[in-house]
């Protein structure tokens, strides 16, 4: 159940992340790790299939997103996921009074 308080909490945490630049750092970190681990190439190969399937001329961003995102989420290596979660938790612990 979504309580407005939680929602507010989430919003304020997000805001803090952005303001302190942490979100950007996390994003870059994630990207780097995904490339390093070969996740990007894997997913790109999958994209090629999608494009060939849909036809080069007619493929749209939505097509790609719907096809690619679920697979992308699933393909993230565990260690990458763990590290990221860790960092987020650390940030929260530092900057929230919970």
């Amino acid at each position: 159940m979504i309580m407005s308080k939680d929602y507010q909490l989430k919003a304020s945490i997000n805001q803090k992340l952005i303001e302190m630049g942490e979100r950007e750092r996390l994003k870059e970190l994630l990207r780097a790790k995904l490339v390093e681990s070969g996740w990007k190439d894997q997913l790109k190969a999958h994209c090629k299939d999608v494009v060939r399937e849909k036809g080069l001329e007619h493929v749209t961003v939505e097509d790609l997103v719907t096809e690619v995102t679920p697979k992308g989420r699933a393909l993230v290596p565990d260690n990458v996921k763990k590290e990221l979660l860790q960092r987020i938790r650390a940030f929260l612990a530092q900057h929230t009074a919970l």
Partner: protein
Amino acid sequence: MKMEDMPLSGPDNTKLEALVNDIYSELVEDACLGLCFEVHRAVKQGYFFLDETDQESMKEFEIVDQPGVDIFGQVYNQWKNKECECPNCKRLIAASRFAPHLEKCLGMGRNSSRIANRRLASNNNTSKSESDQEDNDDLNDNDWSYGAEKRAKKRKSDKSQNSPRRSKTLKHKNGFSPFQYNYNAGINYEMLGPDEVRSFLTTQCGVISEHTKKMCTRSQRCPQHTDEQRMAVRVFLLGPSAPVLPEADSVAGPESFDIPDGQALMSRLQWEDSPEISPSDSASSKASEEKSGSPFPIKLRMDKEPISVSLTGTNHSDSRRPKKKKRPPLGLNSGGGIGSLSGGGGGGGGGGSQTNISLSTKKKKPKLTAPSISSIYDDLN
């Protein structure tokens, strides 16, 4: 540390954990979206499948690793020794010198205008008569000559006066700009009418170049052509009766670089003795009085630009100084004569007066004699 495996300690933790996961999910989705955009752009721009070219095309663009050849397989200095034909002057220029040559030949580029101006300045100072001669055939040269004469004030013969190439740079003013070459400064004799041809030939060399079929626009004494050639051209263009080389008539000789010519000219004009005439002031005043009635000046080619004469004269109203270019009354008188007998007889075209001056000038140092000229006009007034 696997926090997600630990038992939740409280509702807050759950929420916190959920929060953390949410944030993580958002980050991953951002990454995926970024990739989608990248791929979509690559597809639409056409480079998505670029790494899947067929073997044949791949072989075609393989990196070349042979000596003497670059990685594309092209020879390095293939065009080093080739010659190119300049579209402007039709000469064959070495490839490595082609670009600078074009710059000068076409009159564009940074240095060419600088060089041209410098040459103009020194040309006006040193070989004024010759340059004026060249210009008179072109239109709208009054202003230019005027300016040139003004500048002549500061004449310093920093370059050789006798260099035959001096005058050619003036052509630049009219868009030809052959700083070093003469070819473009020619006139096609087919373009001129008989009268024009005659007047042209009386002042300029006119010898027709074999390559370009153009007439040489240099002076009557241009070193590239002989007098025989000039005579032949005149015979060819004007018929056997026409050609009278102005050179034969030393008085009317448009350009004389030598000092003695000036002296002869002066004597012909029946002025007082040359030595007396030389000093600018006295000579000019005497000469002017005498000159007004003399028919000679008319015949001289000098009656081209009396205005310029006077101008140059006025520049040095007090000049007895040897430093300044002296213009013996010779030039002045002719100017005066011309003024009173405008257009009478004499040479066709403009610019004669300038030649007068140059003649007289050459007598001594190439400097103006302003006072004489001004005094003449005072007398006339």
